[in-house]
């Protein structure tokens, strides 16, 4: 069993590709007059969030790495480094991503980190880079533990995780409509992921997939993009600032402010951290389930249609 296995940091190597692809998308939109929207401050905020994400990875990555190496020393299993092991690791890591992402929308503690990825009202390739600075503090690294305990080397697990993130870059665009039917059936695509970024009641809390959309179909969270309902991008309550520090930390501040309110029971304080976003001890706010129910009261004709089943 080796500790010294290394793989390239593929996300860092992909940075030139990210910049080139953004420039191509921007020029496409400007000169073709379709395929999405760009706005200066929104794009700059997204790019700064992306840079901050890389910086936080460099600064805090050793914490997750330390935990993974402890697990690697504990496990008696070592699957080696054959190509099929890497491929299997990629698929299982994508399943891991599905659940971390689902937790990221259903547990406020994790949402506090993930929310900034959804905080743009635009949907273009810069939105893909609007990533968290605080992922380490969600402790979602533990969801990778089973992979390592099964015998996948930590370096391999991080490598396929990087490939997963790179795959997800290109799906953050309105410039691509739909891919061939077989591809849409199997893979996460721009169409599926536009739905995930929609703040429409219909599109809340669905399409969590990273690479393979089959996970959503398997676990009942898939909603197809509707031709008659364009996704309205952003948050249910959109931010009133482009300040990257506020974008990065606003939900953490909101959550701890809620938890610190006087007169709450300890259970209520805990629920502000672990219940779905929008949970409130006095019922004055709405979770995504409540928003869907309210929508159906106003639009009963939508009952039974995708997203309201």
């Amino acid at each position, binding site marked *: 069993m080796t500790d010294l296995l290394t793989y390239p*940091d593929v996300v*860092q*190597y992909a*940075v*030139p590709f*990210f*910049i080139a692809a*953004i*420039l191509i998308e*921007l020029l496409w939109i*400007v000169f073709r007059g379709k395929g999405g*929207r*760009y*706005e*200066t*401050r*929104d*794009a*700059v905020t997204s*790019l*700064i969030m992306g*840079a901050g994400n*890389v910086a936080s990875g*460099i600064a805090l990555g050793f914490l997750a790495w330390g935990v993974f190496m402890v697990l690697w020393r504990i496990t008696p299993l070592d699957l080696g480094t054959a190509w099929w092991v890497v491929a299997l690791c990629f698929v299982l890591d994508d399943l891991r991503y599905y659940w971390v992402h689902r937790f990221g929308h259903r547990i406020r503690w994790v949402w506090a980190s993930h929310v900034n990825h959804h905080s743009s*009202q*635009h949907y273009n390739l*810069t939105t893909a880079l609007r990533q968290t600075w605080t992922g380490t503090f969600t402790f979602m690294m533990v969801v990778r533990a089973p992979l390592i305990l099964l015998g996948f080397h930590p370096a391999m697990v991080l490598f396929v995780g990087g490939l997963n993130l790179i795959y997800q870059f290109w799906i953050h665009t309105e410039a691509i409509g739909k891919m061939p039917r077989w591809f849409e059936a199997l893979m996460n695509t721009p169409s599926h992921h536009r739905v995930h970024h929609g703040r429409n009641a219909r599109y809340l809390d669905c399409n969590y997939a990273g690479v393979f959309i089959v996970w959503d179909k398997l676990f009942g969270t898939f909603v197809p993009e509707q031709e008659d309902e364009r996704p*309205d991008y*952003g948050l249910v*309550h*959109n*931010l*009133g*600032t*482009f*300040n990257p520090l*506020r974008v990065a*930390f*606003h*939900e953490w*501040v*909101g959550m701890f*402010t809620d938890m610190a309110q006087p007169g709450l029971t300890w259970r209520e304080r805990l629920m502000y951290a672990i219940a779905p976003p929008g949970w409130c001890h006095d019922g004055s706010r709405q979770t995504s389930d409540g928003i869907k129910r*309210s*929508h159906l009261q*106003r639009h009963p004709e939508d009952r039974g249609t995708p997203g309201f089943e």
Partner: protein
Amino acid sequence: MPLHILITLVVAGIAFIALLTWAFGLSRPLRLKTSDEARAAWLRHWPEDTVGAVHIAPDGAAALIETDHGPGVVFAMGADSTGHRLDGAEIRETPKGLRIIFHDFATPRLDVPLPPEARARWQQILTEAA
């Protein structure tokens, strides 16, 4: 990748993309021109509200919205908008208009340029609602 190359790439990339979007005229902020536009912008954020009167600031960057849930303000966020209720907000007069302090980390404050007459009207509505 060596760190100094990564940093150079990132900084230059962000600066170039920002410059291009600005040069292509993609920095123009949203301007609310009609009451219907302001009403639609509010209902996009608060779809359950019943909207009453709408008061658009002269520059179109913000509008005071009277609703059955109390007053709120909808305002430009780049090319888009956001809407915020005003319960708990602090209103201060400035030389050019009003400053609204939301006491919300995600939406700290908004400066609304208003001539004296409109300023008085906004303050009256906000005082009555308080």
